[in-house]
């Protein structure tokens, strides 16, 4: 299908049943405020809309249709129960500023979620406001800065991040007015402690660490790292994107961290929606509690001993870093996470991390046995692991990108490519706990088949994909350079019509 909805637009086509009867000219709005012509939107029938977007949807790979081992993204099954129950009319139709009396249901859920996340983090304070992981990081670093500032310590503006860290970590630090200092990783995938010791000092605001790290290994020296940073007066931020691997087994708070964000769209299985919405609630240690972003939910007992839930705002939390969202963040997403956790419980959370780890280690073992090169062979995989295709690249002239594109033709979404950038030609592979052994076996077979092809017919990889399993076979490999060279970002014919 090559049509956009704009091609299908015809002047005068309309869905009358959605168009209210309204006065032709708005009384009371002076002409100078008005738009002279209606906005340039497609003029299409409801059937055209439904058909267009239904067919578009079929062009996507998704967890519901394909194995999606995208490292660091935890593309596991998104329970439909969470989707359906969070979409109950009572939840969907409530205005954010409606009376608290009319929101005791949703506020109770959010409060329970605060409590559960605090327990999983091993920390006393939680704010649910951040709307994705990166905003959680922002909240965390802003709180760290506010903490130092509250102690009159204005010099601490340097944020340490391991070189393998996710791009959001340094970007966040910069948004919070910090300079970024990278700490190298050693050959085993752990943080280089000597380098860390040299880096810390009176300008250290803190360290941002992902654990399990983005290298797919557990940072074994995490307690030492915490000690070093704390001893130097810095605070510790835990990027919780990889919590799926350890939830219910170790807690950021117990490891000495001061702040952590959760990616509920990873660990707690809320759907990623092709790019969001997610949610990135933060938990913090005692000393950061006063700075948590607003609003939070408070529980009190009323005069009849009944629980009463209400919002806490600036008046009750004067030291807060403030607001991050117009209202209370992505409430609908948080409800999904709440339902997931209520279905999972403590034992379930431990099973999640256990089986996510089992699947990753099994896949690593099988690929390794099949002759692929794992990046950290001496280490256990966590919920993910890294393969380097450097040997294949050298031998056959094919890249990790080529492997990835060819995998699509097998009906398998490609792993994360070229991240972390320390490992050449790398694939970061995260199978998640909800996939079967059979699916993992099929992945191994596909990888072996592709390598065989790389040997015998590398051209096939270099030009992949030709046809992915979507209706019509999809497009071939797309030219990214062309896209960036002369950006074509809107359908200009529509606008100028």
């Amino acid at each position, binding site marked *: 299908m090559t049509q956009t909805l704009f091609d299908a637009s015809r002047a005068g086509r309309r869905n009358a049943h959605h168009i209210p009867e309204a006065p032709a000219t708005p009384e009371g709005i002076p002409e100078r405020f008005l738009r002279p012509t209606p906005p340039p939107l497609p003029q299409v029938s409801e059937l055209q809309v439904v058909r267009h977007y239904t067919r578009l949807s079929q062009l996507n790979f998704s967890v519901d249709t394909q194995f999606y081992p995208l490292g660091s993204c935890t593309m596991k099954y998104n329970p439909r129960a969470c989707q359906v129950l969070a979409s109950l009319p009572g939840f969907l139709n409530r205005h954010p500023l409606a009376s608290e009396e009319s929101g005791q249901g949703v506020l109770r859920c959010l409060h329970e979620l605060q409590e559960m996340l605090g327990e999983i983090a091993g920390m006393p304070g939680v704010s649910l406001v951040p709307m994705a992981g990166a905003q959680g990081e922002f909240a965390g670093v802003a709180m760290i800065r506010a903490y130092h500032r509250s102690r009159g310590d204005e010099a601490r503006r340097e944020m340490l991040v391991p070189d393998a860290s996710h791009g959001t970590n340094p970007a966040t630090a910069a948004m919070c007015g910090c300079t970024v200092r990278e700490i190298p990783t050693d050959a085993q995938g752990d943080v280089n402690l000597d380098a860390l010791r040299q880096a810390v000092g009176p300008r250290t605001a803190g360290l941002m660490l992902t654990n399990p790290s983005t290298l797919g290994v557990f940072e074994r020296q995490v307690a030492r790292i915490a000690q070093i940073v704390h001893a130097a007066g810095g605070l510790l931020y835990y990027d919780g994107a990889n919590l799926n691997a350890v939830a219910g087994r170790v807690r950021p708070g117990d490891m000495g961290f001061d702040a952590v964000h959760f990616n509920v769209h990873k660990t707690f299985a809320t759907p990623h*929606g092709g790019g969001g919405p997610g949610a990135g609630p933060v938990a913090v240690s005692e000393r950061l509690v006063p700075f948590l972003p607003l609003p939070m939910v408070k529980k009190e007992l009323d005069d009849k001993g009944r629980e009463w839930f209400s919002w806490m705002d600036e008046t009750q939390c004067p030291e807060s870093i403030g607001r991050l969202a*117009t209202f209370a963040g992505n409430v609908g997403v948080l409800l999904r996470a709440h339902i997931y956790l209520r279905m999972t419980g403590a034992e379930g959370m431990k099973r999640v991390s256990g089986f996510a780890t089992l699947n990753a280690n099994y896949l690593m073992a099988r690929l390794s046995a099949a002759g692929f090169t794992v990046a950290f062979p001496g280490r256990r995989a966590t919920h993910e692991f890294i393969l380097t295709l450097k040997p294949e690249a050298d031998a056959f002239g094919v890249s990790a990108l080529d492997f990835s594109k060819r995998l699509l033709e097998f009906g398998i979404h490609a792993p994360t490519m070229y991240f972390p950038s320390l490992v050449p030609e790398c694939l970061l592979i995260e199978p998640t706990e909800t996939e079967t052994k059979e699916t993992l076996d099929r992945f191994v077979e596909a990888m072996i088949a592709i390598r065989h092809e790389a040997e015998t017919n590398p051209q096939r990889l270099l030009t992949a994909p030709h046809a992915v399993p979507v209706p019509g076979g999809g497009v071939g490999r797309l030219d990214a350079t062309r896209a960036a060279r002369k*950006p074509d970002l809107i359908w200009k014919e529509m606008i100028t019509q």
Partner: protein
Amino acid sequence: MPFIPHTPTDIDEMLRSIGVPDLETLFEEIPDPLRCPTLDLPPALGEMAVGRMMRERAETDANGVCFIGAGAYEHHIPAAVWEIAARGEFLTAYTPYQAEASQGTLRLLYEFQTMMAGLTAMDAGNASLYDGASGLGEAVLMAARASDNAGGKILMPASVHPHYRAVVQTMTADQDLEVVEIPFDPLEGRILPKALNRFHGQKIAALVIPQPNFFGILEEVDTLTDWAKAEGATVVAAVNPLSLGLLKPPGHWGQQGADIACGDGQPLGIPLSSGGPYFGFLCCKQALLRQMPGRIVGRTQDAQGRTGFILTLQAREQHIRRAKATSNICTNQGLMTVAASIHLSLLGPEGLAKTAALCHARTRTLVDKLTTIPGVTRLFTGPYFHETALRLPKPAAPILARLARLGIQGGYALGEEHPFHDKGVLVCATETKTEADLQFYADTLAWVLNAKEG
């Protein structure tokens, strides 16, 4: 339980392949002292039990007839919107990193960018930000970076939504940015162009212009834009996208148009949902393109010349540029743009325009009805779109609480943010309100105002 498919046989075989005796051995690298005891979480519930619990909770959350706006608006959402947007292939995909396996999302985003650029009369749009307030934060940061007067003041009218201002405050707190508040005229409820005079000749990086403003009042966008452009400032428009069915788009404000347009996409098919998820949108003029934060989708080709779509201009983004990126944003509000695209396509130009016109008409009728009640008057005189502030004869908060118990969410008490206006209430009536709803509100308010305290 949690959706894990492993059979006992699977587990045995897998452990054997790995070469470990049991699952716990896989965690041997975690130092023992760090291991935590069993978490203290509520007991796991089956789907049936959790369903019953959530249904009971949702049932207590009744809205009544809602006349609150203040940044989130109840609109009719055609049934087709979420029936299609919630399809698994949209819902359970990730950010479209593998373009060839994500043409659904990518093509849709390209269309979304087009529609938003068309609505705002801008040259380009991104693929969404978190929400309206944080979107304004990003827009201000972007304007500060891009402005000819970089390093200068950011002028922020006090008529901007107070939460938006709070978020901008949080997001700029650790930057070397001076955000200066411009007071609004207490009579008209909006910025008087002459209020800007005192900034003339100072280095102004950017001027934020809300349209309509927090009080629902229409700002003199042409004059304000022209003033700012003359000062060399970047103009950031914060707009309600639904109002653009009727109102002049930012790209056409004044002589040159605004440079950046942002706002909250909630009115375009997104449920109220106690505040989120909504989405922020951001559009800009061509010149600012490479300063834009967030994902951007571009059109390209494959080797056979077939059209395809792909994430582009990624050199702006955190995963490439790290500390030098235009923003830290990664996950945005993708699925909401799916809904908004479907919503806008179903409405079309006429539908959007008429919806906006009807919202305006309804609010006018409501204001007419309410202001016939003795002691109820308009607080500001400026022209408004679909929301405006009224003054009650008594403090607003207790009256609103009373109304809520009678099935009416009667508006937003201005006293919360503007203590001097403790009798002020912001009311809004969208196309969802019938004549009978408006009358119900008026009758009930009259009764409540008359009733003895209690």
